[in-house]
């Protein structure tokens, strides 16, 4: 059987590309807007976590079998596959693992003011936990410049949560306004 060479010279692949203009004007093209609203239950672990945010502290679950601490909390240990054992409460101080500067929003629209987002590895007993997996949160940063991100100065920096005023908190991840560097 003849060899079938798969390159530009020998193959014309099927498919009918359209320009954006063509697509909208084609007879038979239809548009449809989905109306899908959801109510998600937060579950046992996250309900408690959100309630504690209102009180200005971060709740985690500890597995006494392997010693792992979970933030956000889970009611089961992913590794031991057993129920986690107890609640522990963290102040929220931690170390920046990674951070980026976003110039676009959720639907890829340009933002007027870029946002700084990152991951914080949270302290347990005022110490940075070691290992591949760790308790941590994904959040916005404030008092951090674009330059701090680009030079890498922010990575490894010590941060703490900046809480909203108590009366403004509503049991939401945004009760923490952002994480900010600890001075000195």
């Amino acid at each position: 059987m003849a060899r079938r060479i798969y390159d530009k010279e020998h193959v014309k692949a099927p498919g009918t590309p359209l320009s954006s203009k063509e697509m909208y004007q084609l007879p038979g093209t239809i548009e449809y807007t989905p109306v899908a609203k959801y109510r998600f239950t937060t579950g046992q672990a996250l309900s408690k976590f959100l309630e504690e945010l209102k009180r200005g502290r971060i709740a985690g679950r500890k597995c006494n079998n392997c010693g792992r601490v979970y933030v956000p909390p889970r009611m089961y240990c992913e590794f031991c596959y057993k129920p986690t054992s107890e609640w522990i409460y963290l102040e929220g101080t931690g170390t920046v693992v990674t951070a980026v500067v976003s110039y676009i929003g959720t639907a890829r629209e340009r933002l007027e003011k870029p946002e700084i987002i990152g991951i914080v590895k949270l302290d347990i007993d005022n110490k940075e936990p070691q290992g591949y997996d760790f308790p941590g949160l994904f959040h916005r940063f404030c008092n951090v410049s674009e330059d701090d991100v680009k030079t890498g100065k922010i990575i490894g920096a010590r941060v703490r949560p900046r809480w909203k005023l108590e009366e403004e908190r509503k049991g939401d991840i945004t009760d923490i306004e952002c994480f900010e560097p600890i001075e000195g």
Partner: protein
Amino acid sequence: MSMWRKKCTTPEYPGKMETEKYVYTPGLHGLEFFKTLKEKDAIVATKCGETLYIPPTTLCPDFSKGEVVEVPLTNPWYIASYTIVYEDMDGNKLDKPQILALLVPEEDIVGGIIHYVKAEPEEIDVGLMVKAKLKPREKREGKITDIEYFELVA
């Protein structure tokens, strides 16, 4: 459940699908279908061997590409099946019952068109002849609603 609601301040969390809209292209024979409907008093079917497929499927069961054949809307079609709708999507009673039917141009075809039939519920029956009521050419948009409805042939 009610106990749980009392115990927890935030048992549920709202969400909304952010997609503004979907735009669906008609496909290969689908494009022919809507072009023909817009420009002529006809639609197209996909012909595989001796069998016609409506709506046109582009591909045949043996995976070959089917032939496009025109099927006039000016001839009578038949009611293959129907249903009478008394309520809208939200369960509100309609002022006048609507008849939705599966309509076929002849006997030996696979599929058909789903459309409204303008008739009284007591007049309707399987096997009755109907004819398409089309919008005037200049008002057609290349959509299935270019056929306003089918009506019974007296």
